[in-house]
């Protein structure tokens, strides 16, 4: 594709979009699909035909709108009218009243404005508003324009500088400066170089990356292509969990579309730059998300981490310099190039710029996919966006960062969400999971649950993680069955510190977080289990209850 062709296509598509007075966006992401979204979609298509408004109303199959609790969700533009729990029998009325008569059906609308008020959508800018399977939709909203800009008007070093100035940090959890990482790979010697997008979102309860890939796959692809240009790579891989069939399918089709349009392949935009992407499927291993383990998995081996250095930037895939970023990191890149690093750096807080996507779940009234500016407090997320815990229940704790994230109590609700503050409190940013617990959850049992997860997922390479976590699990399991003494609590703490210090990779190093934070903030519950043999939440000590799969 030539630069002019992109501009013309974008213009044509934008005009086409404008020629429709209404646009009905039907969310067909994994959150809405199990509840009949596809049937709703075809019902809308039939209804606009039947009522003769085909010419003025476009029905689109889109990705996640963000409000997973009201599945299937439907968004009508202009005005962003959000309909909740749309079933096929409601479709005709919506089309008749809203489209034909111009009167939105108030009773069916999702009335919760607070859910969106504190959100800021940069990564999810197109989610729910474009058809992820139509590359023209992405182009209409300025897609691949950043790639064009990078290739024709910027040097690779200029791109890196722009990303560095934006302050963007890796969204996979560790929070390493993206610009710096890119610079390492760019300066590394060796050829060819590789770019890997990490979509191995193995954390239970986290679906932010998946939703992004389902809703806006081209933002990831474009970000990767820009990164490849910046670091001098010619080949990319997207490593995606095979448990995400819709994301896999969407990415597959998006890569093909990008290839056929000439955004991937040889001599992109008639420059000397060539780049292509291959999809690689994971097979259910949490540890594969670790950056050296992902390399092993792509090479067709067991996903086992290795010590660093050498870092993948110097010795990655097949020993070549490799850039590994989370898909959310890549999706930020096109916007940064288009709007400028200064604009991006003005969002969020000092040392932690931009936004972060979270999947908000657990005992919260409005679960869903959210994107918030860095620096927002946990309380704002849980109570203003999430609407607090269900009626009659009491907030107990919030977990940030997936299975290896810590649990934070009520008095830390004013903690701002940024890498540093979270780390200091014992939690981590992780890949973006926020799970809310109320008074029906037992903290000892929950710590045990996550430890069991990590025991299961430990690759077994290093002893502290393999044997240490199992030992830890056994002690926690004992607590929930009335075994153990107060001295064991010290033992647990000692063991946790040891696992943290001595483990080879991030899995082991963060696995004790749930136990350590529950011990720190909810010690009374442990004491109740040990001394009074009582579970304050009424979860443990049941006959056969909590029987574990770990043996």
């Amino acid at each position, binding site marked *: 594709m030539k630069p002019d062709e992109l501009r013309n296509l974008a213009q044509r598509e934008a005009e086409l979009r404008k020629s429709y007075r209404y646009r009905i966006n039907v969310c067909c992401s994994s959150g809405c699909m*199990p509840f009949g979204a596809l049937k709703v979609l075809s019902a809308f298509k039939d209804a606009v035909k039947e009522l003769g408004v085909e010419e003025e109303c476009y029905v689109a199959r889109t990705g996640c709108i963000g409000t997973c609790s009201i599945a299937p969700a439907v968004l009508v533009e202009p005005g962003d009218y959000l309909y909740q729990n749309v079933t096929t029998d409601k479709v005709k009325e919506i089309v008749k009243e809203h489209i034909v008569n111009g009167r939105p059906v108030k009773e069916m609308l999702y009335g919760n404005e607070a859910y969106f008020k504190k959100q800021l959508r940069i990564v999810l800018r197109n989610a729910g508003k474009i058809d992820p399977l139509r590359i023209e939709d992405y182009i209409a909203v300025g897609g691949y324009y950043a790639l064009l800009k990078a290739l024709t008007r910027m040097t690779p070093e200029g791109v890196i500088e722009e990303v560095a100035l934006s302050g963007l940090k890796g969204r996979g959890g560790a929070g390493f400066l993206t610009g710096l990482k890119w610079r390492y790979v760019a300066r590394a010697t060796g050829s060819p170089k590789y770019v890997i997008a990490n979509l191995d979102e193995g954390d239970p309860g986290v679906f932010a990356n998946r939703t992004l890939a389902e809703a806006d796959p081209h933002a990831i692809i474009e970000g990767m292509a820009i990164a490849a240009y910046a670091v001098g790579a010619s080949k990319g891989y997207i490593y995606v969990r095979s448990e995400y069939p819709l994301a896999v399918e969407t990415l597959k089709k998006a890569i093909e579309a990008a290839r056929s349009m000439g955004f991937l392949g040889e001599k992109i935009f008639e420059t000397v730059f060539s780049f292509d992407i291959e999809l*690689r*499927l994971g097979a259910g291993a949490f540890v594969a998300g670790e950056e050296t383990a992902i390399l092993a998995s792509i090479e067709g081996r067991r996903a086992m981490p290795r010590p660093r250095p050498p870092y993948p930037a110097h010795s990655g895939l097949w020993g070549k310099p490799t850039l590994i970023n989370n898909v959310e990191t890549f999706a930020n890149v096109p916007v940064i190039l288009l709007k400028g690093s200064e604009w991006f750096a003005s969002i969020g807080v000092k040392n932690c710029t931009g936004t972060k996507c979270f999947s908000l779940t657990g005992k919260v009234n409005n679960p869903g996919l959210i994107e918030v500016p860095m620096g927002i407090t946990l309380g704002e997320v849980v109570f203003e966006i999430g609407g607090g815990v269900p009626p009659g229940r009491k907030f107990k704790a919030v977990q940030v960062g997936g299975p290896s994230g810590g649990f934070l109590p009520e008095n830390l609700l004013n903690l701002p969400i940024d890498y540093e503050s979270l780390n200091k409190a014992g939690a981590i940013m992780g890949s973006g999971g926020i799970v809310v617990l109320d008074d029906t959850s037992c903290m000892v049992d929950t710590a045990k649950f996550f430890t069991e997860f990590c025991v299961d997922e430990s690759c077994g390479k290093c002893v502290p993680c393999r044997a240490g976590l199992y030992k830890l699990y056994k002690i926690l399991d004992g607590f929930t069955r009335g075994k153990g003494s107060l001295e064991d609590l010290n033992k647990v703490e000692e063991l946790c510190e040891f696992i943290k210090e001595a483990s080879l990779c991030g899995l082991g190093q963060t696995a004790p977080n749930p136990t350590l934070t529950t011990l720190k903030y909810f010690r009374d519950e442990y004491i109740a289990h040990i001394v009074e043999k009582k579970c304050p939440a009424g979860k443990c000590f049941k006959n056969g209850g909590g029987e574990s799969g770990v043996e």
Partner: protein
Amino acid sequence: MPDTGFQQVGLKVDRRLTLLENAIKKHQYKKDALLEILHTAQELYGYLDRSLLTYISKLLRLPPSHVYGVATFYNLFKLKKPGAHVVTVCMGTACYVKGAEEIVSTIEKEFNFKRGETTEDGRLSLFVTRCIGACAMAPNAIVDGETIGKATPEEVLKKIRTILEAAKVEAR
């Protein structure tokens, strides 16, 4: 042409085998395509038995221990034949805090087997999975591919019974 050796490992020559061979050819017998090939093999055969793994190791010229090691490392690959009907309960965090454990233990009690196992008559398998990503509708259970959101133990049991009943009638 590599030694295919399907007869040595006791694999039947059928359409599935042809499709598997084609997939391996498409990957140019590259050793690093092992995971992709295991995916394809499982899709075709439903699970990876020993003869299949041996066959793949021959084609890719990898030691059988390597192929076996990779197949057992990843949770997704099944080495035993699953039951005619499959129930999978999501054990992601959101589902766990909303009572997924009760669903699993209810099914275990009702059919007298454990998670990860198949009933003796081979009719039903019970698996737990780590997060299917429909956390807002937690807890989730998948019965023969159909997702039940905000599931209760009773609801899931009822669904399983209906499916087993229907299969019985069909068999007659």
